[in-house]
């Protein structure tokens, strides 16, 4: 029985306890102009070995969601509410020191720009050995072997040579693969990949996706893959969550969301992807631009760009079950344009 045929309840029973459970997370930024609710009541769950695609336009709150899980929110940002449970333990209650022990060990993040991970002044091996020994007492030789294995795992040719290199001696694609290898070093429970392949060539992108996908399946590591491009995650993620202005507006199995998208925003995103079927035609456009978080319309945040909006939409819709594992935050889910 395939996952998408099961109801929500049987899924939970089948998969055991979630690795990650985010409940009503609110991450707000207090700015001079007002409070930007970058993440505003987000619920997400992730099971062992599962890949969740987190999709939305820039500014929708995807990275802030990831940083919140990582404990990387600095003032003027703050966790204003909610819980982030990693294997049942609430990360929002950890001290900075406790968080540091979780980061790089139980959860790892891969950033769009590998220089967020790599120190330009240190050799790759120095950084990787440190990353192992920060969380585990072992010899330098053991740590080095782990580092080499991790480079092997992400398909880096002649890892021995790369270990001795400085980051600037590597190409962009190679640096990103090293950053990924560092994320894998301590066999984390959860990886947050924040648009890690956006700047890379398609062939390298595919290779990285392939390797991470295989890794999750084999080791049971759960992964959140953040992207603005549905085409990147359609063939990879088990489930998709679509984010708009700090909220999840649609979530479901990849099959449900791609084959029967219910939120007008999800449908707009799908219509924007250029591909074979759209050849020579105009792409469907989502009118307007992402609204400022400080000036969201009352009710549904998508209202001013939505072709279906009516009087009902001036009240905020709840994220409600639409079909088996699929939930949608919309007063007119699944309706086509009037």
């Amino acid at each position, binding site marked *: 029985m395939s996952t998408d045929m099961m109801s929500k309840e049987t899924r939970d029973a089948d998969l055991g306890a979630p690795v990650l459970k985010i409940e009503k997370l609110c991450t707000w930024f207090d700015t001079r102009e007002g409070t930007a609710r970058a993440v505003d009541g987000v619920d997400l769950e992730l099971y062992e070995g599962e890949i969740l695609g987190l999709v939305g336009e820039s500014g929708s709150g995807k990275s802030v969601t990831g940083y919140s899980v990582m404990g990387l929110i600095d003032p003027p940002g703050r966790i204003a509410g909610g819980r982030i449970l990693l294997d049942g333990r609430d990360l929002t209650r950890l001290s900075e020191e406790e968080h540091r022990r979780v980061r790089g060990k139980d959860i790892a993040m891969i950033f769009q720009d590998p220089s967020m991970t790599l120190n330009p002044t240190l050799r790759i091996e120095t950084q990787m050995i440190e990353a192992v020994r920060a969380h585990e007492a072992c010899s330098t030789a053991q740590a080095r072997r782990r580092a080499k294995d991790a480079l092997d795992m992400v398909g880096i040719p002649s890892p021995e040579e790369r270990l001795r290199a400085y980051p600037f001696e590597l190409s962009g694609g190679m640096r990103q693969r090293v950053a990924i290898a560092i994320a894998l070093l301590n066999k984390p429970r959860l990886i947050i990949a924040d648009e890690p392949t956006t700047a890379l060539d398609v*062939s390298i992108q595919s290779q990285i996706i392939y390797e991470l996908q295989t890794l999750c399946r084999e080791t049971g590591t759960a992964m959140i893959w953040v992207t603005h491009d549905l085409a990147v995650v*359609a063939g990879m993620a088990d489930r998709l969550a679509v984010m708009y202005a700090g909220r999840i507006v649609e979530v479901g199995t990849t099959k449900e969301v791609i084959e029967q998208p219910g939120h007008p925003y999800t449908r707009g995103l799908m219509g924007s*992807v*250029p591909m074979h079927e759209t*050849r020579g035609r105009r792409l469907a456009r989502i009118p307007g631009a992402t609204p400022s978080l400080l000036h969201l319309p009352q009710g549904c945040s998508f209202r001013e760009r939505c072709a279906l909006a009516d009087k009902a939409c001036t009240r905020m819709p709840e994220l409600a079950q639409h079909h088996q594992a699929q939930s949608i935050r919309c007063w007119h889910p699944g309706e086509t344009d009037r």
Partner: protein
Amino acid sequence: MTQTPHLALVPGTAPAAAPAPETPVILEIEGLTKSFISTPGLGGHIANLFGAGIKRQEVRAVSGVDLSVKTGEIVGIVGESGCGKSTVARMLAGISNPTGGEIRYRGKARSKMTRAEREDFALSIQMIFQDPYASLNPRMRVRDIIGEAAVVHGYVTRAEMPAYVEDLMTRVGLAPDMADRFPHQFSGGQRQRIGIARALALKPDVLICDESVAALDVSIQAQVLNLFMDLRDSLGLTYLFISHNLGVVEHISDRVVIMYLGRVVESAPTEELYARPHHPYTRLLMDHLPTLSVERRTHRPIAGDLPSPLDPPPGCPFNPRCPLATDRCRSERPALREVTPGHISACHFDDTSSAEIR
């Protein structure tokens, strides 16, 4: 007004018309070549003092590229980074001089143009860059960014300029009342429109789009791609559309050129190329075509990395990564030849369709 206003032109849904076969060729390049001399650099000089013997090396960024583009045609250029796409674009736009080969514009060779003709030619070809922010002067108002060059080159007088800019802004879907603002007050998609309006101000015949939509969100990318298609229909523009995104190129191009290590390895009308890719490199690239299919993709990576152009492999440039490579491929470079009418490919295999690439 904070929203992107809608484009005045109504987006049609009918497939855009590719130019008819008898349409004149507007731009032609023949044997276009560009070499860079890489000098050892400071570190190298110091190493040389200790006898390292690092020499000046020649980088062949582009080697003998032929291409002909018809009026109103959209030609896509695809290839991994470093294969020479931007170098070709810069030579066409007159930003960099070729080391060899010839560029012909409306039948006239660039090397035979008078200075005035060459300037006209340079204005007829405009480039749209990837990063709209880096290419806009942050201290200039949008009106001047768009209109200044048009005044300098005598397309309009200074007095006519504001109205001229307003018209251009409307054309690219920017509200004209934003002309007094500075670039940082615009979103990424709007800044890309400013770059397009600035290019259009010089009444070009050809737009070279070098990864022009790569940095944009898919939703904004869709708006800009639609704009390019509308402008072709309304102004009869010709495009060279450079991208590493095969989906974007398939969507917009009439014809596609695949480059590898400074050379063209395959070219065909878009539908033909995507339906019947011939070159093993193209066929591997096609595996990575973006789709919205939920079928699990087993991403079969292209083995190995792009070789350095400093040290290109002998024989076929693709041979170290090619699953079909034979001894012949390792010693003799295949020439481009026509496999079916209008479809050229550079591979020793006469019929790769029967040879399974696995």
